[in-house]
């Protein structure tokens, strides 16, 4: 029996877990684990043909358990997601090594547990991505959920609380999927993908509705789709720094992966489109699209109100997931490509942003946007990375976020969905506003006195950030590189493929060539720079070497305030922040509490004999009469 490449990869990943488990208490554990992620990435790159339309690679491991066959294999879809997973794991782990780790340990954190949790997350994600049938998918799904719980909960305190919330949501999702799997199993007689494919074509509408609802709710919870989005931001924001970079980059995309696999590949968009909602003009696909759009808008505008940098980013992570789903359910060649490409792009800039913010926390000790400012002069490289990241997040050229969002918008217009388009643009507006708040409050404005002497982030943290920034720019310049992978993913799940080039996409309704765009942009920058430098000499002065209102400034006077940002805007739209979903969540919880109280009452204030008597009476009466 020869090991396939997939076996090799999973083996390395398992070894990483074991190393983290047994050797993780030694000092250089972080580096060891990082190197092992590197090896895993290399092993994944050996499977690179998958990214260019290669045949799926099976694992030799096939288990027969309780009459079910469990198998694992990698195809283009798995490979694409695995690449993002391992890439972000490698960089996050790299970032964690060295100074961050020492600081974390000094603060009472458990470095061993952190690396173990990361390794477990990666391992379980790879297992999930490799799943070759619905049952192994569910097993991987649960593993990912619990591994994520471990990483989120390990910081203790508020983090544990957020993680508990997460796991409750995740269990709801898992149980929805479990129920869905049971229904599928009954109608298909097997959980193999082939059998399900044939079974789906014979399913009645109610059955299909039920399955679509169960699966999209189940997977959607992990993605933070609209009614189930509340858990995500606190959970990710409270995870230890590099962990949140990793989780923010890829964890909730597992939901998207599963949606792709089950709803798109197995059920087929066509089938979902055929599910009409009675008395309305919309069908299940439109429903999903609108959920996606609301997932873009609401969390993005919630992010705008955050005063904690990490919470702000985490809320954005939810919103960006909406773009991906939106692109996917539009499901034409360009839309799906945009959605899938956005997974990659989002992972890069989200990781970069979390890392930059963590670097700031590392140096200043706070992520409160109201207590920072002016750090650009002290941490210029981190500023650059953050700038690159927010440009990507806002979807502006020249970074990669622009490409994927452009594709999504384009396809919305092409497919004649102007309302969705407008809604998505509103979401982008919110994004731009809130990321400006982020960069302004941290890096621009007045440098605080207490931050006068801080230094740039250490190189162990800087290098991964710079690598990410470079990737963001390069894939923005040459989107054809990831688009090639995306195209093979689309092929693998049975969607049509756009006509992509190295610089973008060509289509009859409008092409995009980022090389040109960026060329023009940089030409513009060049002109601007020319004007700036030719205008005369500028002098660099200390920020307090200034005056206001006729007085010289001193260190204890603030001449620039960064809190209560967007006061005017909030005055306009503030009334819309009602916390309705929070209210919903609370009411569900209170309902459970109430019922629980009632049930305890049944048991505690028991007249047990009366119960027995009445049960006997009713049961026998039911039979006799």
């Amino acid at each position, binding site marked *: 029996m020869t090991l396939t490449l997939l076996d090799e990869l999973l083996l390395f990943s398992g070894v990483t877990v074991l190393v983290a488990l047994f050797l993780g208490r030694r000092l250089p554990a972080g580096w060891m684990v990082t190197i092992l992620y590197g090896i895993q990435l290399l092993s994944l790159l050996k499977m690179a043909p998958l990214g260019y339309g290669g045949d799926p690679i099976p694992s030799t491991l096939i288990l027969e358990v309780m009459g079910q066959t469990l198998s694992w294999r990698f195809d283009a879809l798995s490979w694409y997601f695995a690449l993002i997973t391992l890439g972000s794991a490698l960089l996050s782990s790299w970032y964690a090594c060295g100074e961050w780790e020492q600081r974390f340990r000094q603060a009472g954190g458990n470095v061993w547990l952190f690396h173990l949790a990361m390794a477990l997350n990666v391992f379980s994600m790879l297992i999930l991505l490799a799943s070759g049938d619905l049952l192994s998918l569910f097993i991987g799904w649960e593993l990912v959920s619990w591994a994520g719980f471990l990483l989120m909960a390990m910081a203790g*305190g*508020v983090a544990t*609380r*957020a993680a*508990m919330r997460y796991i409750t949501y995740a269990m709801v999702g898992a149980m929805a999927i479990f129920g869905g799997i049971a229904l599928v199993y009954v109608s298909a007689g097997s959980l193999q993908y082939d059998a399900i494919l044939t079974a789906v074509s014979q399913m009645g509408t109610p059955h299909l509705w039920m399955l679509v609802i169960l699966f999209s709710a189940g997977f959607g919870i992990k993605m933070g789709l609209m009614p189930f989005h509340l858990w995500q*931001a*606190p959970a990710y*924001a*409270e995870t230890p720094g590099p962990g949140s970079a990793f989780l923010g980059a890829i964890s909730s995309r597992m939901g998207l992966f599963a949606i792709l696999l089950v709803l798109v590949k197995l059920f087929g968009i066509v089938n979902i489109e055929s599910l009409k909602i009675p008395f309305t003009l919309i069908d299940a696909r439109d429903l999903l699209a609108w959920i996606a759009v609301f997932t873009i808008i609401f969390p993005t505008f*919630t992010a705008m*109100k*955050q*005063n*904690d940098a990490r*919470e702000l980013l985490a*809320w954005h992570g939810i919103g960006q997931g909406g773009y991906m789903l939106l692109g996917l359910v539009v499901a034409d060649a360009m839309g799906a490509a945009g959605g899938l490409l956005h997974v990659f792009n989002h992972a890069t800039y989200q990781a970069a942003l979390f890392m930059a913010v963590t670097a700031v926390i590392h140096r200043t000790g706070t992520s*409160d946007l*109201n*207590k920072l400012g002016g750090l650009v002069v002290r941490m210029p490289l981190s500023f650059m990375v953050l700038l690159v990241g927010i440009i990507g997040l806002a979807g502006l050229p020249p970074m990669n976020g622009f490409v994927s969002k452009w594709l999504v918008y384009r396809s919305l217009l092409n497919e004649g969905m102007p309302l969705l388009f407008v809604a998505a643009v509103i979401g982008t507006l919110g994004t731009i506003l809130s990321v400006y708040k982020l960069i302004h409050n941290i890096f621009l404005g007045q440098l605080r006195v207490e931050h006068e002497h801080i230094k740039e982030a250490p190189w162990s943290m800087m290098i991964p950030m710079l690598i990410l920034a470079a990737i963001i720019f390069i894939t923005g310049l040459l989107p054809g590189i990831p688009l090639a992978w995306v195209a093979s993913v689309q092929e693998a799940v049975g969607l049509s493929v756009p006509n992509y080039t190295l610089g973008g996409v060509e289509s009859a309704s409008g092409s995009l060539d980022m090389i040109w765009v960026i060329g023009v942009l940089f030409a513009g920058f060049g002109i601007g720079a020319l004007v700036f430098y030719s205008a005369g000499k500028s002098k660099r002065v200390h920020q307090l070497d200034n005056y206001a209102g006729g007085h010289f400034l001193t260190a204890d006077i603030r001449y620039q305030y960064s*809190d209560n940002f967007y006061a005017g805007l909030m005055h306009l739209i503030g009334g819309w*922040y*009602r*916390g309705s979903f*929070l209210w919903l969540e609370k009411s569900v919880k209170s309902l459970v*509490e109430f019922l629980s*109280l009632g049930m*305890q*009452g049944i048991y*505690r204030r028991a*007249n047990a*004999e*009366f119960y027995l*008597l009445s049960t006997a009476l009713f049961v026998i009466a039911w039979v006799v009469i």
Partner: protein
Amino acid sequence: MTPTIDLELILYITALGLISIGLAGVVLSQHLFRMVLALVIAEAGANLMLVLAGYRWDAVAPILTSLGEHPQMVDPVPQAMVLTAIVIGVGIQALAVSILIRIRQRFGTLDRHEVAAHMDAEIAQIAGTSRDMSQESPLGERPLPPLPGTPAASREGRS
């Protein structure tokens, strides 16, 4: 002898009536000893029901008096079973009474509600939990992390 409907009905009414009385007694009485007594009554009913299952018109007790021909005899199996059931009942009643003695000594009462209240209190005391069923938030709760849209979102306010 001709079987009469009356005897049958009377016997069944007696047996099932005893069970019903016992059940009602257990449900209605507030005193644990009375509940035990009601249980005894109900058991008597069930035993009677069991022994009725073997009754036969025109038959004698299942004991051979002479070899060879013997008259029709009633079913011996329910009789044996009822013997067993009675003894089981006696054992349980004796145990019940001895437990009642102890409860009386510990709690000074045999009223079911008072005993239940004492019991709840003692369980809670041993476990170290608060006994009341107040609406306070369940264990492990912490105030939620700063929420979107609430004024408290700014963690420390202005600096």
